[in-house]
């Protein structure tokens, strides 16, 4: 207790100096909380966007689909996979898809596209491409079962840039050509454009065509098969749990693999990790500079009190006590500055959680593509108690650690020499 009292006294003795050191530490902690809070939300938004643009949180594919990426690697009895996935509590929807690359032609214009056969009832809940928010014209696909004539052209839902490029509008006809499975020659079929979407990702808006799953199966000669089932969850953090649960449920079907989104959206996941690494590196630089400042302050305070410490030791204060009294000073500094830092950081967090920052204001309205997604809209700070507690402890530890050397120097003083110090 005595150590703490001495610590407190030396802390307040130089109010101004302590205040400056304190503000450096507090600022460091507040910045850390700010960056972590904003980073968490922007990364979650990036992941979410990637997930909703195609992969889903968890993806079930045929074992060789990841390497082949062609409808050859499709699997049957997908209804069972959909049923099992949707029976999981965390799952919102499981969307079966059949994808292939192909060629779309309208009049004299044509371009290469990615054709995705989807379940019209499930897809709008599973992907932001099919969701009403992305639709700029027309409507989504109607299930082929509701079609009046069996041979009538199927519905096609395409990206806005693709439509502009082909010069087609809602109601126009297009011809989709693909290479069917187990056939040597390309196969074509006519489709009618029923709706257009715009995601802001030029690559998708320019190259994706969605058609009814049944039409796609017919076109590709793989009736009853899909290339993937994308599972959408209510919570990003449930990804690993659901991946494991689904893998267990589907263990009997060893021709399938269950992949969590980081394995599918590898580039995006890498970009997120790299962004985090960059942020931590910058904070590490700041904290090293702060630590050197603390080291300097505490060392000064010890040097100034050389005489005082000499007297304390001469009247019988043990070296350990001297050591702990210097550490106590830094502990007081640590606690005081984390209180200020937390107040500052949490105030910033609350403000940012409420108002947020519009990311496009930094880019001058331009979309900033990072590994296949675009960061858009407002970012709100997100912090959990664990994260705040963790960083507070890190900062307290850092402050106390910076004082170890000065405390050691104080404890090693020889009373007689120290007392002679001016």
């Amino acid at each position, binding site marked *: 207790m005595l150590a703490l009292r001495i610590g407190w006294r030396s802390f307040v003795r130089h109010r101004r100096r302590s205040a*400056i*050191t304190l503000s*450096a530490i507090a*600022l*460091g902690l507040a910045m850390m909380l700010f960056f972590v809070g904003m980073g968490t939300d922007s990364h979650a938004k990036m992941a979410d966007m990637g997930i909703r643009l195609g992969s889903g949180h968890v993806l079930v594919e045929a074992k060789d689909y990841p390497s*082949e*990426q*062609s409808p*050859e690697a499709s699997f049957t009895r997908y209804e069972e996979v959909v049923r099992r996935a949707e029976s999981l509590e965390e799952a919102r929807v499981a969307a079966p898809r059949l994808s292939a*690359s*192909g*060629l779309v032609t309208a*009049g*004299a*214009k*044509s*371009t*290469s*596209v990615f054709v995705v056969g989807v379940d019209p009832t499930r897809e709008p809940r599973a992907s932001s491409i099919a969701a009403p928010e992305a639709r700029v014209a027309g409507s989504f696909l109607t299930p082929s079962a509701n079609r009046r*004539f069996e*041979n*009538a*052209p199927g519905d096609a839902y395409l990206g806005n840039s693709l439509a*502009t*490029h082909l010069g087609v509008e809602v109601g126009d006809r297009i*011809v989709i*050509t*693909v*290479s069917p*499975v187990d*056939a*040597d*020659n*390309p*196969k*074509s*079929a006519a489709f009618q454009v029923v709706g257009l979407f715009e995601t802001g990702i030029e690559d998708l808006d320019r190259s994706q065509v969605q058609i009814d799953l049944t039409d796609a199966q017919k076109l590709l000669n793989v009736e009853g098969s899909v290339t993937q089932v994308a599972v959408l969850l209510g919570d990003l953090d449930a990804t690993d749990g659901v991946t494991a649960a689904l893998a267990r449920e589907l263990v009997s079907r060893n021709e399938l693999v269950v992949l969590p989104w980081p394995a599918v959206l590898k580039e995006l996941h*890498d970009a997120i*990790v*790299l962004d985090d*690494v960059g942020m931590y590196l*910058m904070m590490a*630089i*700041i904290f*090293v*500079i*702060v630590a*050197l*400042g603390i080291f*300097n*302050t505490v*060392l*000064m305070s010890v040097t100034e009190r050389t005489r005082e410490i000499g007297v304390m030791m001469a009247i019988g204060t043990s070296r350990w006590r001297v050591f702990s009294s210097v550490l106590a000073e830094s502990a007081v500094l640590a606690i005081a500055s984390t209180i200020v830092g937390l107040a500052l950081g949490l105030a910033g967090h609350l403000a940012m959680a409420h108002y947020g920052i519009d990311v496009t204001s930094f880019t001058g309205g*331009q*979309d*900033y*593509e*990072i*590994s*296949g997604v675009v960061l858009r809209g407002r970012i709100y700070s997100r912090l959990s108690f664990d994260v705040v507690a963790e960083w507070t402890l890190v900062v307290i530890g850092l402050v106390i650690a910076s004082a170890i050397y000065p405390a050691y120097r104080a404890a090693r003083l020889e009373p007689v020499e120290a007392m002679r110090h001016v």
Partner: protein
Amino acid sequence: MRLWGIAKRNLGRNRRRTVVTVVALAFGMSLCIATFGLTDGLSAQMIHSLTRLDLGHVQVHSKEFVEDRELSAKISRPSEIVDEARRLPHVIGASSRIYGFGLLSIRGKSAGVELIGVRPDTEKSVTELSNQLRAGRDLPKAATPWPARRALTAQEQALDQALTERAVRSALDELDELDELDSTPEIALPGADIPPGARAEEEHPAEKEPAGTTETDLNDSRDRSAELSRILSPRPTRPLPVLLGSGLADVLDAGVGSKLFVSAPTPDGFTETAFAKVVGVFHTGTLALDRHRVYFHITDLAHLLHSEGQAHEIALLVDASENAPGVAAVLASQLSADLIVRPWDEIRPEIGKMIELNDVSTTIMVFVIFFVASLGVVNTMLMAVFERTREIGVLRAIGMSRGRIVGMILAESALMVALATGLGVAGGLGLDYLMVTRGVDLTSFTGGLSLGGVGIRPVIYGAITPKGVLIPVVVLATICFLASLYPAVRAARLEPAIGMRET
């Protein structure tokens, strides 16, 4: 100047404190310079990937091609423009290109791709694609021999007429049948079900035999149609050599030597087919190129797309990316108004924007780091002032002006900052040098990223730029000058009598 002497002595008085403060500043400086080195390296890599692997620095297109990528909007007499461009100052190379779309298939696998035709000899002077080959070799310099088309003789024309009439008749019959069924048939793309190599029905889309004709009759007219169409549009004598991207090669499970079937719609409304042979596989790290592009010899692709002697694009390489806008402006003034000449940052404005944004965020980081570091300077200087309250009192008493006291304290901090800057710049350039020569290897983190659709290699090389050193130096000097004003003013405010009384 005596002031600097006093400042130097004062700094030496508490050596450990000075050293720790200087180390903190120098550490911050080194890492800021290194961060700039890395960001600039990343920007340079993005520009390089963009200009040296795909775009070139300046491109010429026809207006319609830029506006809606209309494949029929070609540049006439491209070779004259290429020659003209090569004569301009700063221009290193120029090459023409032609584009198309097609479906590639091999053993049941297929992919929709962008077809690009380049002139292998001149393309080398613009892009470095031939250095990115992972397997195989570059496209051959000479185009694939292709028999010339010729017009039909009167006899052949009569045969063509007869075949067409028969086909139209049978098509009408078929339609009548369908009307009875009250349903629309699945529309087949002309030529979609033609065996590879043959191209019979394209010129005569309706030439399908009704089911009622006998087998021999049907085969006979098919063969005759094929014969006629080969006169009008002959096949190349051997498969066309092509380069594939690594991603596309993986998807198609193809490699050097694989024979692919290409089917491509032509700008004049037909679907052409041909065999192609993979001679090389390239890897650029940019998905759009690696996954979706096939390179042909420009003459081969122009033949296939019925666009002989024409081009969609002329790409120029200039000596430095900064000179691109100037060259574009000069070239635009020499060419006709229906051609659009643009430098790379106008073709892909988001990349320039992104590079700017990276610079801004690094500068913000430098400010934040030095702001925190400057708090250490304030503390050190304040301590130095308070320790010397008595001394400063004496100096004031013997007649030193307030201004000189401020100057003395500022000189002390300036000396400290100068020392830190020297050490920091040396350290920063050392780190830069390591990054320039060895690169930062992120392969354990990632196999490659993409920013703005441009692939970034997992090994990032730093770049040393004047700006990357100047910004940290100027920011540190400014912030520290402002930070030492307060201690300096406090020292100058001391009343001599009070100051001297202090112990």
